[in-house]
């Protein structure tokens, strides 16, 4: 009897909370849909630059699934690869085939090698020909964790700052202290700025800790500058902080705040480079570019795996800063709901 009453009450509460109900039913569908799109395109044909290769070799490579772009000189091909347009450059030094791999993505290394070996075997009729190898980045010792790790460093900064900042700003509202703050001469933007500053100190601490731990303790490759890693982490945390506080305006309690995780945070994982973006349809790639984590992960991967410097990451930094400014301004506007001036 009591159990029934309890169950009834819960059902009633659920029906009244349409949002939670919708989340429970629709969010899994959304995530599953995303995963389908994302994993469907997983097999990516490697893009190989062919430097003055005879046409039978090119045809054979193409037959085995590579996208082959012919080049007349090695310099141009290498430059293209440095811009991440190519995964490998294949040339002949005398009769010895020579492959230079881009080297930052382990799964791409594997697929280039597979295609090249099959093609060479078909052409010569001999199996086990070993082409000479060299790497643009790293030396083939990069494992999957280096690749994913560089992205996860940014993701965790983002995720935890998002949640903590969001919940604490929410609590400011639910405990009535926000109302009380707004009854003082404090300006709305000052509240947002205060939060940025207060949390900024902790995010700096967190960013340092994560960056240090992942490179020194976990041994994730770090070719570029540690300070730049720190800087990118901080920018990511700033974007997360502003996004979290902004979204907390649209949650009634902590529980509803958590509902933003599958809606806002999880989709960003798909677009931050854990899964190859080039395998996705164009419109989906466009979605990725509207998310902060995309830029943070892109820059972090560059710094940690390819030794990118300020010249390569300034666009990513600018984008993240832009997001932070946008979210903060929207938050100032959202506070109008609580005080009009």
């Amino acid at each position: 009897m009591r159990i029934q009453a309890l169950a009834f009450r819960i059902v009633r509460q659920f029906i009244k909370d349409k949002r939670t109900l919708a989340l429970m039913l629709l969010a899994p569908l959304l995530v599953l849909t995303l995963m389908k799109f994302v994993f469907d395109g997983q097999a990516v044909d490697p893009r190989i630059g062919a430097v003055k290769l005879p046409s039978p070799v090119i045809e054979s490579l193409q037959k085995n699934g590579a996208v082959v772009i012919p080049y007349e000189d090695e310099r141009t091909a290498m430059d293209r690869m440095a811009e991440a347009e190519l995964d490998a450059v294949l040339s002949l030094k005398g009769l010895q085939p020579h492959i230079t791999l881009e080297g930052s993505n382990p799964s791409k290394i594997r697929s280039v090698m597979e295609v090249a070996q099959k093609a060479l075997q078909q052409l010569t009729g001999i199996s086990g020909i070993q082409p000479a190898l060299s790497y643009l980045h790293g030396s083939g010792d990069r494992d999957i964790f280096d690749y994913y790790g560089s992205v996860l460093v940014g993701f965790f900064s983002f995720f935890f700052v998002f949640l903590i900042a969001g919940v604490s700003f929410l609590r400011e509202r639910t405990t009535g202290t926000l109302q009380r703050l707004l009854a003082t001469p404090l300006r709305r933007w000052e509240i947002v700025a205060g939060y940025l500053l207060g949390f900024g100190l902790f995010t700096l601490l967190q960013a340092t800790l994560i960056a240090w731990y992942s490179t020194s303790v976990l041994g994730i490759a770090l070719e570029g500058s540690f300070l730049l890693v720190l800087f990118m982490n901080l920018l990511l945390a700033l974007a997360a902080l502003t996004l979290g506080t902004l979204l907390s305006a649209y949650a009634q309690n902590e529980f509803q705040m958590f509902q933003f995780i599958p809606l806002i945070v999880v989709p960003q994982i798909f677009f931050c480079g854990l899964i190859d973006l080039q395998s996705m349809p164009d419109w989906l790639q466009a979605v990725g570019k509207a998310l902060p984590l995309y830029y943070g992960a892109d820059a972090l991967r560059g710094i940690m795996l390819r030794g990118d410097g300020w010249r390569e990451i300034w666009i990513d930094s600018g984008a993240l800063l832009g997001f932070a400014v946008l979210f903060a301004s929207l938050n100032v506007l959202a506070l109008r709901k609580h005080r009009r001036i």
Partner: protein
Amino acid sequence: MNLVTQPNDDSHSDCIAAVHVSRSFGKRTVLDDISLTVRKGEIFGLLGPSGSGKTTLVRLITGLDIPNGGTITLLGEKMPKLDILSRIGYMAQSDALYGELTAQENLEFFSALYGLRGTKLKSRIKEVAELVKLSDDLKKPVQLYSGGMKRRLSLAVALMHGPEVLVLDEPTVGIDPVLRKSIWDELDNLRRAGVTMLVTTHVMDEAEKCDRLAMIRDGKVIALGSPEQLKADSQASSMEDAFIAFRGGVA
């Protein structure tokens, strides 16, 4: 000659003035054509049952909300105006305190918003804590406070920057009779010091302690005057009877 700009004596001593104020949320009208003035140096009571619109009116007066119609003037300035907020002290209905911080830290935080600091801040904390009898508990985290202590601390927060006007939303709710009396004694002292106070309450005997009061029911002012005047007008012996006589008690 100059009849339009000539201020009359009444408006000169007006501290808070609401003129034909109305506020509705969607289709629900919470305040309906409210007009009242609070004179400098008096304790003005807003008496009415819960849901009558007291808090909404208080929020309009403190500039947290904007009326759909009519105007609110506070210390001669049309609200909402940010500068005025530093001259009023506000005690919300719910204790807006940071539970994890100590009472002292709470006082320091809120005072800092008004620009108090240094030795002035320290002496002021001592003074105000004495006033609300929390001197011995300043170092305790607020989450360990009892309901009454939190209420007193909220009052202390409102008093810290020495405001000219105090807006107190149900200051004595959940406080035992002894403490309630001590808070009202304190309000009396503040009145003698020249502070103007707007106090909301739904307790009838508290209403008697106000200089003047407005009875509010369903967002309308049903009666306005001094407690004696209201009782005389309704030929009632108590405030409760007076409230009912003004059709306050019947839905």
